[in-house]
């Protein structure tokens, strides 16, 4: 999601958490997953693969939903500590998807201070990057006058 909020809630709802993990910095996400792994115990990898997700779009003229094309994604699905974790990211980075699944599994047992701190930091980074881009876009706004 495009998050321009100044204050990030300490506990995100599941959709916001997943969206944020999918856009988080890959190295920092992997480091967090490494730190969370020991507490999860033995991990069963249900799925770790790349695949295609078809992206439909709604035509603005007749309202018809149609397929725009397929997006390559990396998917990871794990079971551990009586819970499950899932990661899916645009691209083909299986390690990033797996790190996302590990964090999702850990967060399902409770969004600890460590996870909250990570989430808050990443949310700020993402918001800053989005804002910087949108300020550049705003610079191209045009007001036309006809003679």
């Amino acid at each position: 999601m495009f998050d321009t909020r100044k204050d990030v809630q300490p506990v995100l709802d599941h959709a916001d958490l997943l969206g944020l993990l999918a856009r988080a910095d890959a190295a920092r996400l992997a480091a967090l997953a490494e730190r969370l792994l020991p507490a999860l115990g033995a991990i069963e990898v249900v799925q770790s693969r790349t695949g295609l997700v078809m992206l439909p779009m709604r035509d603005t003229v007749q309202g018809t939903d149609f397929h725009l094309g397929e997006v390559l994604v990396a998917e990871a699905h794990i079971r551990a500590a009586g819970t499950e974790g899932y990661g899916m990211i645009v691209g083909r980075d299986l390690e990033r998807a797996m790190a996302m699944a590990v964090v999702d599994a850990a967060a399902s047992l409770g969004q600890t201070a460590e996870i909250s701190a990570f989430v808050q930091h990443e949310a700020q980074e993402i918001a800053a990057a989005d804002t910087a881009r949108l300020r550049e876009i705003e610079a191209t706004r045009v007001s036309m006058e006809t003679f």
Partner: protein
Amino acid sequence: MAYVATRGGERAIEQSERLYRAELGRIDAARVTAVRQTLPMLIDRVMGEASLYEPDLAALALAQSGGDLYEAVLLLRAWRTTQPRLGIAEPVEQEQLVTHRRISAAFKDIPGGQILGPSLDYSHRLLATGVLQGHPFEPRPVEPAATPAPARQPSLAAWQKAQGLVADPPRAEVAPDDIPDLTREPLLFPAARAHTLQSLARADTGGMLALGYSAMRGYGNAHPTVNELRLAEAELRVRHPRGTVFSAGRVKVSQAEVMAKGKSGLLELGFCATLGWNEVKVISGATLDLNAPGAAKGSPVEEEFFLYHTEPVEASGFCIHFKLPHYVTFQSSLDALRGARGAAAPIPEQAPEPEEVTA
């Protein structure tokens, strides 16, 4: 088909492929990265025509084919078949798009305003020849506005429908799994609108431009004006095993509506969208969509004509297959020609009957 088995070409074929690849040289990850970073517009065009969004793979396909677009698209379409379909995302709606560029040529004051975004529309087309003399071209940085643009922009078409300027037909709700899909079923005519728009999204940019341009020059039913053109990013909204719908990231998309005054007293719109940022393609495609209703059979703006002739893999494949041995076809043509000449020679005053020659 009149093909003939030939023998003896194995070595020549092997050496021919080597000769082609030798000119491209060694392909490594650095080359692929350079292609991806320096040619984003080309990457977008290839991803749209391949109907597969993955910039690294598109860059690899371009590097491997030496920039032959049709070869690159074929490589990606073929590679795609090795991958499982994991699901169908939630449909993208115009008002959810993270919008980078959004303009209207028809209406000056559109709700949300006009945002040029990244564009060379108003630039001088001067080749920076100094680069070749050792003076690198350094782009000047953007001077950002104090406040950010809204990430999302309202839909002009929705506003026009609310104003009664554009027809607002009732829409049928279709579950994502039930949306017609050309990768699973053939294109039949008259085509479902979902097939038409998917086919345009995958179509060859150059082919669409040629046919769309013919309509723009007057060989169509309606002259287009750009109602709204957008370059944007769409969220890929997928489903977690526990049912949560979330964004797995963003992909670049472009979409265009073109407009003409219809006979009904309303404005009529044509629509086209594709993966990646490709303005010529979506404006051409929307022009074809606008012109399609009621088009004469065999005209370039007739749906069957433009959809069949802009499928890049089929069109380029059919074109280049003519290079493959057609010796039997040709032999039969030659025999017919010689037969006709032989028959005609003794009686020169009598015109020979034309013979039916088929491949």
